[in-house]
Structure formats: structure tokens, C-alpha cells
């Protein structure tokens, strides 16, 4: 999996360089490739926060995400965001 990922990621990097030598891609392709990041990250957040195995569920981790997201919104350092989210979730589970 790691090697596949490494190869695939390098493919995009080198592919972009080769493409630049050969052709100018359309602005639409440009936009699509760079818009994939926000779209897929947002989808990933939703799935990790609400997917209870094929049903939408709100769990302790959903609350923890909310705490971490607020911290991120207020520009807390990345490590603080992770620790707050994990701590809030762990705390709720201990209750």
C-alpha cells in the first residue's frame, strides 16, 4: 500500500512536469485537480465523523471533532487541535 501510494504520488508530481513540457492543460482541468483536495478532505471528515457502518451516527468522536475543529478555526497549533479532539472524545467515553 505504501509503495503504491509513493508511486502514485510521485506520478502526479512528475506527470505535471512532463505535461508542462508537452502541452498546456485546459483551465478546467487545472481547477478540477486543485479542487479535489477541499472536496475529498471535506468528504473524509464527514465519513470519519458520522459513518457508523453504513448509517449516519453521532458519537463521542463527533463531539471531539467539533472541539478540535473549533480550535483549528481559532488558529490553534495542529498538535493542540489533535490533542483537544482526542481528549474531548476520551473524556466523553469515560463518563
Amino acid at each position, binding site marked *: 500500500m505504501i509503495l503504491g501510494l509513493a508511486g502514485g504520488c510521485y506520478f502526479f508530481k512528475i506527470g505535471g512536469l512532463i505535461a508542462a513540457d508537452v502541452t498546456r492543460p485546459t483551465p478546467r482541468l487545472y481547477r478540477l485537480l486543485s479542487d479535489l483536495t477541499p472536496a475529498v478532505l471535506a468528504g*473524509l471528515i464527514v465519513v470519519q465523523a458520522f459513518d457508523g457502518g*453504513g*448509517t449516519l451516527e453521532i458519537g463521542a468522536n463527533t463531539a471531539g471533532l467539533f472541539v478540535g475543529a473549533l480550535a483549528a478555526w481559532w488558529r490553534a497549533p495542529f498538535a493542540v487541535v489533535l490533542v483537544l479532539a482526542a481528549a474531548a472524545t476520551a473524556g466523553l467515553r469515560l463518563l
Partner: protein
Amino acid sequence: MGNRLKLFWARDHRRDGVLLGAAVGIFGVTFGVLAAASGLSALKATAMSLLVFTGASQFAALGIVSSGGDPLSALGTALLLAARNGVYALSISEVLPTNRVRRLAAAQLVIDETAAMSTSQPAMEESREAFWITGISVFVFWNAGTLIGVLVGEVVGDPLSWGLDAAFPAGFFALLLPHLSNTRKRVAALLGAGIAVIGIPLLPRGLPVLAAGLGAVIAATAGGNKR
């Protein structure tokens, strides 16, 4: 400080490149800690940082595998997230060396930080320097950070693992914020989230995240021209 070092440090683009790398090193530590808390071996975590060298994709693959997702959907999601590096490569291709071997090595360093640093310079010479200094600095600090994080994570990983299923999405949210730079990208994110919500009960596991990529297709087709 030696005279040469002082001269090196006196230029903003060089200093900023080194400092940016050091800041990314902290992300590297968090990646290592999360990798250890998710049960990934030190060897695999380090190999990932050396060879994949794309933060968001590494976090995503790790998050999906650690929540019990299958490797194939982890791979697909991480690759969709890596596609933007192709755009960066296209836009800074003139900054990179023409020598074939150096170009192949430089390609591995094409990421968010190097693209941002080299495109924000006023002239070609500064762009080139900013690319290499930032790229090498991020590469060194990201990998050193990962290694330190794995070691730290083997000690503190257990408490963190109680809330790992919140730490990952909260981290993704922090990674998402800088990518919401214009309305079209914000629409792409909202569409991606909406498609995932609809997809969870309807699609097999792993597919809702990939389907969220359609949000980008819609936004890029209908939306404005800004990068």
C-alpha cells in the same frame, strides 16, 4: 554566526524557507505520533514520509486504515488528495532544473510549501532558491519529525488512541482550512461533504469519500476562474 551564514540568512526567501521547513517538522512529529498510536511500525511510518512525502495524503491513508477501512480505499483517497501536486508541478515547471536527474529529484519536492514559496518570489533566481531551500528543509524536518514522533508515540500513543477517531477528522479539518481560499473551493468542499453524507447509507464502505471528489468536478465545471 559566520559571515557566510549571515549572508545566507539575510535574504528573506532563504530564511522563510528554512523556518517553514522547521514548522512542517512539527506536523511530522504529529504524523509519527498518530502512526504509532494507530499501530503502524516505525519502519513503515518512516518509509511513508520519505517516499510518499505529501502530508495530507499520508494523514488520510493512515486515518482510513486506522479506522478499519480497506487499503484500496485508503490508496484511492490519498491519491485524489495528491492530484493537486500535479497542478503545482505544472505551474512551477520553469523554476525546476532542466538537467534530467536533478529534475527527477526536484519532482519529489513539489508540494504545497515549495509551490507557495517559489511562486511568491519576485524573480526567477529567488524562485529557484526558494524552491530548493524550502524543499530540502521541509524534507529533512518532515522526516526527522516523523522519526521523533514515532518514538514519542510509542510512549504516549495509548492515551491518544482512545480518541484517535476524533483526532483524525479534526486534523483533516485543520488541513482543509487553507484550501478554502476562494468561493469555488468552498463550494467544492460543501458539495464533497454533502455527497459523503448521502453516500454513507447508500454506497459500500470507502466509496463515499471517493464520491466526494465529484464535488470538485461540479465546482470546477460550474465555478469561477480563480486558482
